[in-house]
C-alpha cells in the first residue's frame, strides 16, 4: 500500500515536472509551476523559508520521502532502475556508507556556492541536472512530435497545434546534459540510487535530518527469517540484513523493502528510538565525464556576401516580378556587459541565485534566453535578441524561476525596468549603407526611447538616423531584433550590471 501510494505520487510528479520543461506553450506553468518551486535547493536559493521548513519537517517526520516523491532526478533514477530490475531481479546488495565522499562533495558544493562558482553548483544539483537533461535532450524530441502534429493540424485546417522551431541552443550545454544523462543512467542501472547517496548534496543534507525521523522502517527481528530479500531490493543499498539494521541517512523511503518482505517483518512505524549509522568506507568509481566543447555561437555561418549584394539591389533595377530575397542570419553582437532578465535585479544576484536548471530557457517564448558558455556562468541563461526580443507583455521567466534568480515582476514593473540600453552603430545602418529611409527601430520601440533625426544638423540632409534616449530605453531588444542590417545589427543592447527603474 505504501509503495503504491509512493509510486503513484512519484509518477505524477515526474510527469508534470518533465512537462514544465517541455511545454513551450506555457500553459502547464500556471497549474503546476509550484512543483518547481518546492524543490529543495531552489527554495534554499530563493530563501523560501516556508518551503524549506516544510521540507525539513516532512523529512523529520517521514525520512527522505522528498527523494522518492518530489525530486525529479530521483524519480528518473527510479524509472531507470525499474527497467534494470526487469532484466535482473534482486540485484542490489548492502554497501557501507561512503560518508567521506558525501561530506567532501557537500563541502565543495557549499564552498563553490559561497564563492560564486555557479557552474559547479549548477552542475551537481539534482533538480537543475534533471532540467538540463529534459531541456536539451527530450525537448527536441517532444517538439519534433509537436511539429508533426502541427503539420497534420494544418492539413485539416485546425489551429490546435502550431509549429515550434527546434533550436539546440548550445553544444556545450547539450554535451554536459548528455554526459549527465549517461552518468545518471549508468549509476542508476548499476546501483539504483548511487548518485543520491554519494554525490547529491541535497541527499546528504536531508540524510543528516532523516536519521532522526519519526517514522522509520523497522525490522521486527522476531518475524525476520534473514532471507535478505529486503537488502537485495533496497535501491539505496542501506539495509544490512545480517544485523537487521537500516542506515537511515541513506534510506529514501521508497517502501520497496516493505513490499518485498514476505514475513511482514519490516514495518514503517513511528518511534523515537535512534539508530546510529555505521561509518565505513568502500571504494567506488564516480564517473561523470565532463566535456566542455569549445563552441561559440559565432560559428553561425553566413552564406556568401554575393547574396548580400543581390539582396541590396534596388527595386527599380529589377526586371521581373516575384521571388523572395534571401535573408542572412543575424550574428550575436559582442556585449561588454551581459544581459540578464528583468526581475534578476543585478548580474551578481543572478549568478548567485541561478542553479542553471533551464526552466526559464524552456519557458521563454521568444527564444531570447539561452544557456551561457562562459566558464563561470556556464549553463546559466543569458539573453540575446537575434531570434526574438524580450516582449513587453511577457513575464514568463520571472513566473517560472524556482530559485529566485529571476524574481517575480508584474508587466507594469517590467516595462519600466532597465536591463540595458541600446547603442547605435553608424557603419551598419542601412540608412547610410543602402541609402534608404528606415526607422524600424524607432517604430517598434515600446518605450518610445528612439527618435529619428536628420543626420546633418543643418537639417537639409534628408537621411534620418536613430538616436537613443538612454533614460527611457529598457533594453528590450526590439530594435536589435527588427533592425534590417545583417549580419551585424546597426543597433544593439548593452547590458547593465544592476537594473534600475526608469
Amino acid at each position: 500500500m505504501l509503495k503504491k501510494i509512493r509510486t503513484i505520487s512519484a509518477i505524477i510528479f515526474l510527469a508534470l515536472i518533465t512537462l514544465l520543461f517541455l511545454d513551450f506553450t506555457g500553459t502547464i506553468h500556471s497549474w503546476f509551476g509550484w512543483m518547481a518551486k518546492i524543490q529543495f535547493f531552489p527554495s534554499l536559493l530563493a530563501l523560501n523559508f516556508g518551503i524549506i521548513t516544510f521540507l525539513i519537517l516532512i523529512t523529520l517526520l517521514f525520512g527522505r520521502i522528498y527523494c522518492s516523491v518530489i525530486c525529479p532526478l530521483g524519480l528518473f533514477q527510479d524509472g531507470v532502475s525499474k527497467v534494470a530490475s526487469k532484466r535482473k531481479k534482486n540485484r542490489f546488495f548492502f554497501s557501507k556508507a561512503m560518508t567521506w565522499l558525501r561530506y567532501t562533495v557537500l563541502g565543495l558544493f557549499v564552498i563553490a556556492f559561497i564563492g560564486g562558482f555557479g557552474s559547479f553548483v549548477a552542475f551537481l544539483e539534482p533538480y537543475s541536472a534533471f532540467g538540463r537533461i529534459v531541456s536539451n535532450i527530450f525537448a527536441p524530441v517532444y517538439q519534433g512530435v509537436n511539429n508533426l502534429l502541427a503539420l497534420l493540424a494544418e492539413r485539416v485546417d485546425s489551429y490546435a497545434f502550431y509549429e515550434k522551431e527546434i533550436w539546440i541552443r548550445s553544444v556545450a550545454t547539450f554535451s554536459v546534459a548528455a554526459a549527465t544523462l549517461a552518468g545518471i543512467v549508468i549509476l542508476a542501472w548499476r546501483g539504483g540510487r548511487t548518485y543520491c547517496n554519494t554525490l547529491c548534496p541535497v541527499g546528504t543534507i536531508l540524510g543528516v535530518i532523516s536519521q532522526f525521523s519519526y517514522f522509520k522502517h523497522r525490522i521486527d527481528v522476531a518475524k525476520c527469517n534473514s532471507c535478505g530479500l529486503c537488502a537485495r531490493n533496497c535501491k539505496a543499498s542501506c539495509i544490512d540484513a545480517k544485523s537487521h539494521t537500516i542506515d537511515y541517512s541513506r534510506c529514501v523511503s521508497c517502501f520497496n523493502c516493505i513490499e518485498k518482505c514476505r514475513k511482514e517483518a519490516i514495518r514503517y512505524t513511528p518511534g523515537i528510538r535512534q539508530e546510529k549509522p555505521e561509518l565505513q568506507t568502500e571504494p567506488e568509481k564516480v564517473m561523470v565525464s565532463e566535456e566542455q566543447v569549445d563552441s561559440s555561437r559565432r560559428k553561425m555561418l553566413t552564406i556568401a556576401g554575393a547574396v548580400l549584394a543581390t539582396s541590396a539591389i534596388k527595386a527599380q533595377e529589377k526586371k521581373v516580378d516575384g521571388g523572395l530575397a534571401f535573408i542572412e542570419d543575424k550574428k550575436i553582437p559582442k556585449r561588454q556587459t551581459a544581459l540578464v532578465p528583468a526581475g534578476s535585479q543585478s548580474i551578481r544576484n543572478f549568478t548567485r541565485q541561478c542553479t542553471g536548471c533551464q526552466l526559464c530557457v524552456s519557458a521563454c517564448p521568444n527564444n531570447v534566453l539561452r544557456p551561457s558558455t562562459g566558464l563561470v556562468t556556464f549553463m546559466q541563461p543569458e539573453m540575446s535578441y537575434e531570434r526574438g526580443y524580450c516582449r513587453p507583455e511577457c513575464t514568463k521567466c520571472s513566473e517560472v524561476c524556482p530559485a529566485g534568480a529571476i524574481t517575480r515582476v508584474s508587466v507594469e514593473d517590467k516595462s519600466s525596468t532597465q536591463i540595458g540600453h541600446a547603442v547605435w552603430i553608424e557603419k551598419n545602418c542601412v540608412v547610410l549603407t543602402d541609402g534608404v529611409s528606415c526607422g524600424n527601430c524607432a517604430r517598434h520601440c515600446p518605450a518610445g526611447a528612439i527618435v529619428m533625426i536628420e543626420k546633418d544638423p543643418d537639417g537639409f540632409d534628408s537621411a534620418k538616423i536613430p538616436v537613443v534616449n538612454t533614460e527611457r530605453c529598457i533594453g528590450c531588444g526590439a530594435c536589435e531584433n527588427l533592425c534590417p542590417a545583417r549580419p551585424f545589427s546597426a543597433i544593439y543592447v548593452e547590458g547593465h550590471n544592476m537594473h534600475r527603474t526608469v
Partner: protein
Amino acid sequence: MSDKNKNSNKLGRRGFLKILGGTAVVSSAAFAGFKPKDKERGGIALGEVPKGKMTYRTTPTTGDKVSVLGYGFMRLPTIAGNSARENGGNEIDQEAVNALTDYALEHGVNYFDTSPAYCQGRSEGALGIALSRHPRDKYFVATKLSNFAPNTWSREASIEMYHNSLKELKVDYLDYMLLHAIGLGGMDALHGRYLDNGILDFLIEERKAGRIRNLGFSYHGDIKVFDYLLSMHDEVKWDFVQIQLNYLDWNYAKEVNPTNTNASYLYDELEKRGIPSVIMEPLLGGRLAKLPDYLMGKLKQQRRDNSIASWAFRYAGSFPGVLTVLSGMTYMEHLQDNIRTYAPLEPLSEKENDLLEETAKLMIEYPLVSCTGCQYCMPCPYGIDIPSIFLHYNRCVSENNFPQSSQDENYSRARRAFLVGYDRTVPKLRQADHCIGCDQCTHHCPQAIKIPAELERIDRYAESLKQGVI
C-alpha cells in the same frame, strides 16, 4: 489434414474458391450491360463541360474572331504546388501548362495573354512551348513591352525585349501587342519608355509590316496618361485597350484605392471611340471569388449551381464593347468553371446587376487590402513577403477572424486563427514588423496600395493581439 470422411459434407477451401470464382465471372458478365448512363465520374450534377459553344467577339479593325474568355498567363501552376516560398519553388509546371492550354483550345479559347515580366520572366517561354504544339492560325497570342526598369528604356534595350518575346513565344508575328501598364510612373514614364525613344513609332512600323496585327496598351494608375494616349487615337488608331473592370471597380475604384479610376469612365471612353476593351482583373485578383460568407450566401441563393466567380465573369462579359475577359486560370477547375460560364455567355439580367451593385457596396465596407497577388512589388530587398501578408490579412477579415475587442464572442478562436495562421503563411523574418518603410515597392503596385502604411497597420494589429491590448 482431416480425413475425407470429415470433409464430405463440408465445403472445403477448394470448393469455396470455385463457387466464388464462378459467381464473379457470371455476375460481371450479367452486370456488364448495366452501366450508368452518365459516363462522367465527376460533375454528375453539372454535366459535361460544353464544347463548341464558346461565345466569340470580333475586332472591328482586323476582324479577328476572339473567344470572350481569354487565358491570362501571369499565375501559372508551379511544381512546388504553388507554395512558391523559396526561390527555387517557382519552377513552372510545364506539363500542367500544356494540358491546360490543350484543354482550353479544345473548348474554344483562342486568346492567350502574357508578358516578359510575368512569373519571374518565364511565362512567355512556357506559353511558347505550350502553343507551338498547335497550328499557328488556331490561336491569338498577346504580349507586352514591359520595359519598366530604367535601364531598359533605351531604344536598343526595348527593341531587344521585343525580339526576345518573339523568340520565346516561338512566333514570327504577334497578334496583339501592348504597351505595358501605362500610367504607372505617370507621364514621365510614358515619355521615357515609349515616346522619347521612338518605341511607339517602332511598334507602329511593325504593325504596318504585319509583324504586329493589333496594337494597344494596358492601363493602371495615372489617368492623365490614359487620356493622353486616347487623344492620340486619330494618329495611332489603337486596335484595343486593356483595362481593369469588375463590379467593384465599376463605381468604387476610388474606395478600393484612391488613384484608381472608375471602370465606368474607362469603358465609356473606349466605347465612344469604338475601341474594343480587353478586361483584366475581372475577379480583382481573386478577391471576388472568395466573398465573405454572408455575401456569398446571397449570390448562391439566386443561382445555386453557379460558382461565385462566375458572377464576376458574367458581369465583365456582359458589356458589349468587351472583346475578351482575361483570367489567370492556374488550375483545371478554374478553366472548366470559366468555360461553363462563357460557353455560351448568358448576360446578366438587371436584377442580377443590382444584386452585384449591392454586393460591391458591402464589400467596400470591409477593411481589405486590394492586393491582387500580382507580385510586381517583389522581391522586396529586405525580404518581406508582401503578397502573403496581405493574403493572410484579407483572408482573416473575410473569414471573420479579425476580432476588434476581447469581448467578441469568437475572440480566442479568432485570435488563434489570426496569429497561428500568420506564422503558417509567412515565415517570421518576412512578416510585416520587418518592413523598414524604404518605399521601394509602392510605385510598382498597379493597385497603388500604400504598401508600407498598410503593412504597418497590419503589424500594429498583430502586435495588439499579441500584447493582449485588444
